[in-house]
């Protein structure tokens, strides 16, 4: 049953060293505030799961807190490569990182299977693709009716999933609108789910009957963090900070500049700073 907690309380209570954790978000609603809290708490040896690890995972990896990454596209969307991710993979800085690499279709199906309580996902995929050679978690099953060979991947079952959503009601139900990504699946696939929200409203009266709502009893904790997905965005609240994503390419290009930036903007900052960031136009 969803408990309303402060963000630091929610993260410290639900995320432990060595956990398999998904901070999910598909461009929209990426839970930056929760990830920064995890960095501040120094949670380490994490297995990070995400379809589109972007700047947020570049930051966690650059801080040396991840031992493994399960992913399908590690880029700064529309900008280029992830330089801290590259430095870890190419030069083991600040530590080496193990990769379990998939396609988007595989990850989406694997989250779906996790939400559905299945041990694996079946799809028509990876034909001729070399990932199947380097990832032992890409296997196959045969259709018992047609004989067709299908791709199979294990279900994703994180220890904890963090997502950001527009709002909760006072009972603790959570509403997500717009680009939904795989957040519902990632939330339901996990043993525990922590949600940051822009605000809490009295009730969801008048919301569309088929809107994406996670009921209170499917959530572990909720933390109210206005602006909590900056520089990603929350439709209806604030837009995407594209300038931040463009600027990140330079910040992450240099180890020292990265480290200094993280100290100033993450280690010495707090969840309360996010609200401000959705109002300003430039970043360090």
């Amino acid at each position: 049953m969803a408990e309303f907690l402060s963000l630091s309380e929610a993260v410290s209570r639900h995320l432990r060293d060595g956990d398999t954790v998904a901070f999910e978000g598909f461009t929209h609603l990426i839970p930056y505030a929760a990830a920064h809290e995890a960095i501040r708490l120094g949670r380490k040896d994490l297995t990070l799961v995400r379809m589109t690890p972007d700047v947020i995972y570049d930051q966690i990896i650059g801080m040396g807190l991840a031992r493994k990454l399960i992913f399908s596209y590690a880029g700064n969307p529309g900008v280029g490569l992830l330089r801290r991710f590259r430095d870890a993979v190419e030069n083991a800085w600040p530590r080496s990182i193990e990769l379990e690499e998939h396609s988007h279709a595989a990850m989406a199906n694997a989250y779906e299977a996790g939400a559905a309580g299945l041990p694996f996902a079946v799809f028509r995929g990876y034909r001729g693709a070399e990932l199947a050679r380097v990832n032992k978690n890409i296997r196959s099953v045969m259709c018992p009716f047609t004989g067709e060979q299908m791709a199979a991947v294990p279900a994703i079952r994180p220890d904890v999933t963090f997502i950001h959503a527009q709002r909760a009601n006072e009972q603790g139900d959570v509403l997500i609108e717009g680009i939904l990504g795989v957040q519902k699946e990632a939330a339901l696939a996990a043993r525990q789910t922590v949600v940051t929200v822009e605000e809490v409203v009295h009730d969801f009266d008048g919301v569309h009957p088929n809107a994406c709502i996670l009921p209170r009893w499917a959530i572990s904790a909720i933390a109210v963090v206005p602006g909590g997905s900056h520089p990603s965005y929350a439709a209806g609240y604030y837009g995407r900070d594209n300038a931040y994503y463009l600027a990140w390419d330079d910040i992450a290009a240099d180890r020292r500049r990265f480290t200094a930036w993280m100290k100033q903007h993450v280690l010495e900052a707090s969840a309360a700073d996010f609200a401000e960031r959705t109002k300003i136009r430039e970043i360090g």
Partner: protein
Amino acid sequence: MLPATPSEMMTIAAARLLKSEDVCFVGIGPPSAACNLARLTHAPGITLIYESGTIGTAPAVLPLSIGDGELCRTAVTTVSVPEMFRYWLQGGRISIGFLGAAQLDPFGNINTTCIGDYARPKTRLPGGGGAPEISTSAAEIFITMQQSRRGMVKAIDFITSFGHGEGGDARARLGLHSKGPTTLITDLAVWKIDPETKEFHAHSLHPGVTKTKAEETCGWDVKYAAFVGETPPATVLELSVLRDLVQRSQAAHRRSAAA
């Protein structure tokens, strides 16, 4: 009006291949520019789908990412990512998958994973994203990229997305019934897959491009179609719509989080 740059010519030549009836699964970057240019010119009915779940979207500016809010606001509907990959892509509803490439071989196999060995890459690239299944589930694949000897190579370092393998009936032998890559649009030329060998052949060179130029910027031995034409030059309409779109988009991308 200044003449089209090679990059503009690439986008315009790619846009021309799209029809109003098409349902396109759109990659970010040059494919997105081409698809939206087609929508704003000769193919107003085209359905654009981004893997973030936005179906039938009509953005006023080009998205910086595949999940910009503009895509959702202008879409017919927005579905979850698992549904996108299951019902819409794997369900066989996409007529054109439009992909970019870091490395490409003459059989249309794409590498966006790594330069060098997978376990010890010289350069680690972002990875496949949606491409491995777009390349097999969409009815037909268009590829667009800038020509270079580093990008267009005889043998790619890693097959992220399968094109025509080593050519011939390689797709059929894998049980793939879709066409795979049929057309490559670069900043210098339009290339088509040969129906037998399944190798790219240069079909038309953009205005002012010589065969020498095309060959110098390509890492494989260039083959030509029986008749190599000149790509029709960009029209004033095409250029002005494209430039307007790009300008609006760049201005939007420089802005940060305004509500």
